[in-house]
């Protein structure tokens, strides 16, 4: 596994092998990475009576129309907020927000992406460290899990470069049947299923 350098990244894009769209400014392209911009949708955890993270709810419910409690709990857990360009979003200390990148990413079967915070933002306390691996074959926006580890609010604006993605070649292309996930073709952040595959361990 080796990291792609700028020249190889641009060649892959030119061939249509790799898609990062749009790259608005040349400043986004680094020596071995591309900066990603903050998108316009914010999914924030809402602290209230019906909010919790309970794997058991996922394990014993399905997404059928009549499953009121399941759907209500999922919908009430997050507040969805859209900010057009120019509108600020405050990320308070200790707060978690799921946000999309402005860019649409499409990875081939032989590449995977690693997303990290831009160091200038990381120094201000912004963390986007979780779920930083983008699987081969993925297409969609990248969901960033923003957390403010500092002690003062961070003011964020859609369009800012806050993350970066680096690309790594795989020892061989991933198999078709191993690619794809429930987050494929994601247009905005959605919560994951924390029980998936572990149902046997849940009461």
């Amino acid at each position, binding site marked *: 596994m080796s990291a792609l350098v700028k020249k190889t990244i641009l060649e*892959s*894009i*030119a061939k249509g092998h790799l898609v990062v769209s749009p790259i608005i400014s040349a400043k986004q392209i680094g020596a071995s990475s591309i900066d990603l911009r903050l998108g316009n949708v914010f999914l924030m955890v809402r602290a209230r009576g019906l909010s919790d993270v309970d794997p058991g709810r996922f394990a014993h419910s399905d997404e059928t129309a009549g499953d009121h409690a399941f759907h209500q709990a999922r919908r009430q857990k997050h507040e*969805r*907020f859209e900010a*057009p360009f120019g509108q600020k979003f405050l990320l308070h200390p200790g707060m978690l927000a799921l946000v999309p990148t*402005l860019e*649409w990413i499409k990875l081939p079967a032989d590449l995977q992406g690693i997303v990290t915070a831009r160091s200038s933002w990381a120094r201000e306390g912004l963390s986007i460290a979780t779920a930083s691996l983008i699987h081969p074959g993925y297409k969609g926006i990248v969901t960033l899990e923003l957390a403010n580890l500092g002690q003062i609010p961070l003011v964020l604006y859609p369009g800012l470069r806050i993350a970066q993605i680096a690309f790594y070649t795989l020892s061989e292309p991933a198999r078709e049947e191993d690619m794809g996930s429930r987050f494929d073709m994601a247009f905005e952040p959605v919560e994951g299923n924390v029980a998936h595959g572990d149902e046997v361990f849940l009461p």
Partner: protein
Amino acid sequence: MNSKEFLLQECENVRATLRDVLRHDYSAGSSAEFYNEFCERLAFLEYLLKPTDSDDVSALATFAGELSLLSTIVHHMERSHAGEFPWPFTEYLQSLATPLCKENLAQNEGEPIIRVYAEGGLDSYQINLENDLSQLNIGRRIFTIVFPRTLRHHVLLHAIFGHEIGHAAWTIPKHKADLMDKVLKPLRAAGPLNSTSQATAWLGNDPGAPGPIVDLRNQDPDSTQIDGNKLNSWFQEFMCDLFGLVTFGGSFLAAHQTLLLALDPTGHRWGPYHPPYICRKAVLWRACKHLKWDELPASLHEPGLRADVVAFMNSYSGTTAPGRWEDVFTQDQVAAAVEALRTFLSAAGTSCFNMPDESTLSSLVGMLTNHIPPCGSDLSGAASPVNRGVDFRHILFAGWLVAEKLTTPSGSVKQGLTFDQLNRLCELGLRQQRAIDLYNSTKKGQTS
């Protein structure tokens, strides 16, 4: 408590609600101007109300009506969340409609204040300009855009707003006079809708009418009577359809058919305000022919793209065979109306739709086919990407071309893309294009 005392209290209530609404996130950018305008209106209403005699029931009734209207608008504002409608589309729509709705008002030459909210129902698409608030010293009119809540992400269908722009223009007296004189005049000059008596005979007795029309006549003979009001309303609909086509282009044709046939699958029903869909479709197709949009396939070099455009035309073209019952205007009538409308829009500063060049259209369709949001993104892999400005209406048109390829006659999904996903791709493409436009305009500002 008498009526006057209660109305003064209600002024306070509306003011309190207005402040309460600030808890929510308004649609983009309109919070302060909306708030300030309403504070002024409330203050002026109180100023007029306080010296009013408690027995002046006529004046009090007027004030009650004004307050009720203000509270309705404030309530709608409360529901104006940017997450409930596609704001990039709204911003583009504003750029088309605002120049048209700018007018000289009592205090200043003001652009209207935009408020956007979502409403239930497939037919809830609306653009309204408030009018007749004669008691208030209006600074700026409120301009309302209403989206159907369930179609939040379905930007391809939002091309129907082109029709609603026509209704908004119609509410402005100076525009209405112009539109009646220049756009409607040629349409009213001849044909079966030339007068109420001819129109009634055409709808009620013309032997050339299609079978479904004859069935509807027999079910409700009274509905075939066309009086002056009905005829005027129908002409307004024809004119607004031309507005839609001229402002939004091909995507309007597709959205119009999709939405109207969803509401009336027969396409033959009529009402006091709307003529049968088949007549509207015939007018639109004559307008397309006048604009030479039917010749687009012949001008394309790329076979795949040409096939896409031909498939689109096959789905949305109407008949222009002379003598068909639904073909109520001649080619010359429609051509004159379209040209008058284009001149009118150009004078108002609203840009008309122009067909994209082949390279742009090919690029946008190619992006969608590859499941990439369509925009002016440079995918060449250049070290210094050059992203292009793309007219949002071209993105919608490309979306409809791809929509034609989505399903087989049996309804199964092709291209691995659903109509919902296609709309989401286009919606995201519009957002990305906003970012590109913003960046390019700033860059231009820095270099000039």
